[in-house]
């Protein structure tokens, strides 16, 4: 197999080539870095690329492979969403506020990946502080969709998704607070998983809305997602919401048959608002699951339409609290002009944050302020429980819920420039999952007018393996996940 072919393979193939010494970690990292350099002017998928740093990591990986030949992932390169603190790497969260922030420590996810010998290819672009659904809110410029450079890749983990879709990395980390892994995965035609809340530690992941934020992965197949889940999952006492459980590794259950599993189809998710093109693709994907022996069950999620209103109270409230740490004193941007401490805070924050971040901080301060806390914030938390109860009831009748990820395919850049709130409404199928804390993934399911469409699978709490098992069966029966954007197939390297 040529090096060019190898770059487009899955983790097991790349690992095997490294194990057989057909390629070194340094050669592999160099080849991906060359692709990144070539694609960067067009896609802007990365905020920071540091060839020297990456090649140092790769050289260490080559030594590590000699010392520990049994570790399978040593030397596998990945892209890191720029929200995960990584020691010695600039970590910006897509914000001017952290433009010059070199992290003094590693996030738990980064630590886990480093321990297994993964090599960081660079820091993937994202919406500022993970607030956005299009990657247009990055201080470092928007990311372009590799399938159509006039369109957005989705967000907030848009750089991670675009990088994997364009073959610039075999896998990438992401975070999902309201759909920020699943939606870009769907729009870039790759696989992405958001685990159960509490499965992956949030330690060192720059916080947006802590009761919703969850780290996850992007890759080219459900199988690779399962393998990566086994690296990043697990209890971490440094995150008080990290749950101490002894789940079997996701990759062990991957090949179990899916015959007889009940697939819940939420009737509310196929009506008004869903585009015809996406609907047709998702329905035919569900037909495929039924053809593989699953049983279809109609389910009812009546409260899910309240998810967006509840989210836009809860997430801004938590954001306004989390982002109060950016004060221009301990780290991050400090304004040049101020006459007292109050102005130091206000000017540093006014200059350091972009418009979407300010919008959410302002909204959060409002709903948490005296006289509105009970009416909006507590009410939103009560509705949140009703939404979780809906899912709990639904899972009495089905094993997995299947539906769309987003109502449309990727939209053209600038579509919502004048009307940011309108963009919020498009997250109607992903946000309920975060409110309930459930695991969910997106897998490529087909195309609408040449643009990728994702199938969303949602599982009961802690049932990632069942989701991945179903996604793997789907990918064994179909080849949507092998489709690559023509300009980035790697042939013209």
């Amino acid at each position, binding site marked *: 197999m040529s090096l060019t072919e190898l770059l487009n393979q899955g983790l097991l193939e790349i690992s095997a080539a490294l194990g057989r010494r057909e390629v070194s970690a340094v050669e592999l990292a160099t080849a991906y870095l060359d692709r990144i350099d070539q694609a960067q002017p067009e896609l802007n998928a990365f905020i920071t690329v540091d060839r020297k740093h990456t090649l140092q990591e790769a050289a260490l990986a080559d030594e590590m492979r000699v010392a520990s030949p049994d570790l399978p992932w040593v030397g596998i390169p990945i892209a890191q969403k720029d929200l995960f603190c990584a020691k010695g790497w600039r970590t910006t969260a897509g914000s001017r506020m952290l433009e010059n922030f070199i992290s*003094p420590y590693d996030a738990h996810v980064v630590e886990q990946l480093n321990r297994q010998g993964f090599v960081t290819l660079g820091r993937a672009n994202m919406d500022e502080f993970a607030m956005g659904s299009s990657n247009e809110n990055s201080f470092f410029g928007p990311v372009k969709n590799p399938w159509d450079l006039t369109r957005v890749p989705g967000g907030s983990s848009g750089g991670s998704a675009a990088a994997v879709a364009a073959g610039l990395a075999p896998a990438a980390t992401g975070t999902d607070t309201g759909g920020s892994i699943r939606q870009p995965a769907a729009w870039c035609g790759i696989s992405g998983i958001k685990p159960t809340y509490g499965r992956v530690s949030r330690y060192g992941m720059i916080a947006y809305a802590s009761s919703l934020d969850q780290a996850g992965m992007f890759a080219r197949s459900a199988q690779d997602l399962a393998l990566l889940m086994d690296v990043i999952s697990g209890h971490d006492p440094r995150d008080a919401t990290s749950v101490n459980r002894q789940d079997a590794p996701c990759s062990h259950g991957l090949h179990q048959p899916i015959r007889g599993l009940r697939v819940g189809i939420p009737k509310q998710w196929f009506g008004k608002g869903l585009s015809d093109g996406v609907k047709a693709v998702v329905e035919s994907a569900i037909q495929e699951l039924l053809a593989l022996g699953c049983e279809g069950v109609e389910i009812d999620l009546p409260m899910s339409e309240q998810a967006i209103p509840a989210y836009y109270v809860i997430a801004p409230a938590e954001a306004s609290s989390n982002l109060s740490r950016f004060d221009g004193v301990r780290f991050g941007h400090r304004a040049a002009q101020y006459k007292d401490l109050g102005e130091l805070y206000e000017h540093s*924050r006014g*200059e350091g*944050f972009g418009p979407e971040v300010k919008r959410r901080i*302002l909204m959060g301060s*409002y709903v948490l302020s005296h006289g509105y806390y009970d009416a909006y914030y507590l009410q939103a938390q009560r509705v949140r429980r009703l939404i979780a109860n809906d899912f709990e009831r639904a899972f009495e009748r089905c094993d997995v819920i299947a539906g769309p990820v987003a109502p449309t395919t990727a939209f053209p850049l600038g579509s919502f420039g004048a009307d940011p709130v309108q963009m919020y409404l498009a997250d109607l199928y992903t946000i309920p999952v975060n409110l309930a804390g459930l695991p969910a993934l997106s897998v490529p399911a087909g195309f609408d007018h040449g643009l990728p469409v994702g199938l969303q699978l949602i599982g009961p709490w802690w049932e990632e393996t069942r989701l991945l098992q179903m996604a793997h069966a789907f990918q064994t029966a179909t080849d949507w996940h092998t489709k690559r954007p023509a300009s980035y197939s790697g042939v013209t390297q």
Partner: protein
Amino acid sequence: MRFTEEDVRRVARLSRLALEPKEIKGFQLDLSQILDLAEKLLAIDTSKVEPLAHPGSSSVFLRPDVVTEINQREAFQAVAPEVDRGLYLVPRVVE
């Protein structure tokens, strides 16, 4: 418009955010729209429902109260905008 200019200024003060005059107009409109969205929640009967703060709230645990972090002042202050002899510098607060 549900948010007046003064409302925006008030939440900006609470948020410690300096806003340009032209930003205030924009946020007036945006925040009013978000509030319209949030208003839908008020019609739902939740009189018998407990608030859900986070999905794992039923399994919150305690950890032993022991020192786990070593002193890393120099590493942490290396990213601070202004420090002197181990102290963070800010404008004078007490005259």
